[in-house]
């Protein structure tokens, strides 16, 4: 009887303590953070010693189990590096131009954001969460919520910060979510055979055909009746905007004309905003559209996905996330769900960069 009473008391005490701890932690109690920090101070040296002692064991294990994969991967990566080197040079030039353009227009660019380069020193020992630990923290200016990326693209965000270390939630964690843009590149060339009135200077001419391609902003127009031009010749028009005259019907019974400026970018990439969500280890993250517009058209496999930014977003715009790897269509007005092939490989993280970026809504006024 006495033993049973003691047992019940012990179990009741443990249950109450658990509930108390979970409640305190879920409410973000500072005492819980203090306990975690204090335990970390005791545990880190022990962990360091164990790491040094057990490293040969890990090396032997990987030597036995991963050798063939490693050799294959090495060959594949050599091929990939060869292919990427050429593309990288062209891309660097393009990125610099884009950043200059954004800077000229007073728009935020990644180049203008300070960052802290750090190294991944540990992974989560749990089977149910995807986090890594980095060896820089508050002393480097890192704060909770800051985006973390490696050379390839976004890998996650900071969820816990200590003085000299921080915990990063990976993009595949089920709790991870980020506002992203999908850049849908139309892939087919379109020929518009309809007749359109175009005003060039003072003269009005009739266009017989207009050809638009997806890879250039040059519009090739055949102009048969312009003085000085041989009828039937093809003239490249590199205009910033074409002005189309369409009949207005605001005044009944009286024909008037309204000028509408049509941007020359019918072939420019279209962007749509969505929410990226992690789905756990071994599963590709997905993107759900915030509001799917049918004009966005068919989403091409391989369309780039980049961070959307915004006043409340924890990540600045234009960080590369990955590309669309699969499009899952859904019935009704719901847009498709996109599976994402991440640009960064989360299996082999080493050096990463924490962007010391805080959204405008969180910045403190000086």
């Amino acid at each position, binding site marked *: 009887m006495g033993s049973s009473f003691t047992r019940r008391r012990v179990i009741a005490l443990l249950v109450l303590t658990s509930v108390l701890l979970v409640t305190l932690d879920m409410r973000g109690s500072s005492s819980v953070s203090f306990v975690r920090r204090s335990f*970390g101070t005791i545990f880190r040296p022990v962990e360091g010693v164990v790491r040094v002692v057990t490293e040969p064991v890990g090396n032997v294990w990987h030597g036995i189990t991963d050798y063939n994969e490693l050799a294959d991967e090495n060959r594949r990566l050599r091929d990939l590096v060869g292919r990427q080197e050429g593309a990288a040079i062209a891309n660097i030039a393009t990125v610099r131009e884009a950043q200059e353009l954004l800077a000229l227009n007073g728009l935020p660019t990644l180049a203008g954001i300070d960052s802290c380069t750090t190294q991944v020193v540990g992974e989560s020992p749990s089977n149910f969460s995807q986090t890594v630990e980095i060896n820089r923290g508050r002393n480097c200016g890192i704060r909770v919520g800051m985006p973390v990326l490696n050379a390839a693209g976004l890998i996650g965000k900071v969820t816990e910060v200590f003085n000299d270390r921080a915990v990063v939630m990976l993009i595949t964690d089920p709790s991870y979510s980020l506002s992203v843009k999908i850049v849908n590149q139309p892939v087919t060339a379109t020929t518009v055979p309809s007749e359109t009135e175009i005003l060039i200077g003072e003269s009005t001419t009739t266009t017989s055909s207009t050809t638009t391609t997806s890879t250039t902003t040059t519009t090739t127009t055949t102009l048969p009746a312009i003085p000085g031009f041989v009828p039937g010749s093809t003239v490249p028009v590199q205009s910033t905007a074409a002005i189309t005259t369409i009949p207005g019907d605001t005044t009944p019974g009286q024909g008037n004309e309204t000028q509408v400026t049509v941007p020359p970018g019918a072939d420019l990439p279209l962007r749509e905003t969505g929410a990226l969500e992690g789905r756990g280890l071994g599963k590709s993250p997905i993107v759900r559209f915030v509001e799917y517009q049918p004009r966005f058209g068919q989403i091409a496999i391989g369309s780039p996905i980049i961070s959307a930014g915004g006043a409340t977003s924890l990540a600045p715009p234009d960080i590369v996330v990955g590309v669309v790897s699969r499009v899952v269509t859904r019935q009704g007005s719901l847009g498709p769900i996109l599976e994402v092939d991440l640009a960064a490989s989360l299996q082999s993280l080493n050096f990463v960069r924490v962007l010391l970026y805080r959204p405008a809504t969180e910045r403190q006024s000086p």
Partner: protein
Amino acid sequence: MMRLVALVERPMFRLFLVGLVALGLQTTVLNDLRPFGVILQIMLVLAASSGLARGSEVGAIAGFLVGFMYDLVLTTPLGLGATVFAIAGYLAGFANSFVHEPTWWSRMLLGGVASAVGTLLMPLALAMVGIEGALTTRVVVIIAVVAVTNAVMCVPFEKLCRWILKDPEVVPI
């Protein structure tokens, strides 16, 4: 000096020290090996073995302490792992009390079952506090791997826990 010796002689302090080393192994080498993509759970073995060695009550307390230490290095809510490990420790001890003459294989079996229950309870507990995504079909693979490896590890760990959790010797004056 006498105080330090007295402190080390306390079972829960010894468990804390061994738990620190086990946690070190958990976050380093076991985190690196990952057979079948699953991280082996040495802390859960420690909890279940405590129950097998000293009964359900001590198993629950030891499981709670070990789980609490594990929680401190995870990002999951503090107390969740402690609760799950306490249940695993209690369950192992409780089931073992029904075995007339425990053998090494009965301990292996019970340790494996308690570990499987603990591994299943973890994503359930996470879902209960609103952390979605952990409860997937992959849990089946995790349970299978963790249960088998923990069953094997239970035999030496049960002996270790017998030593850790033995009562301090009373020296006659």
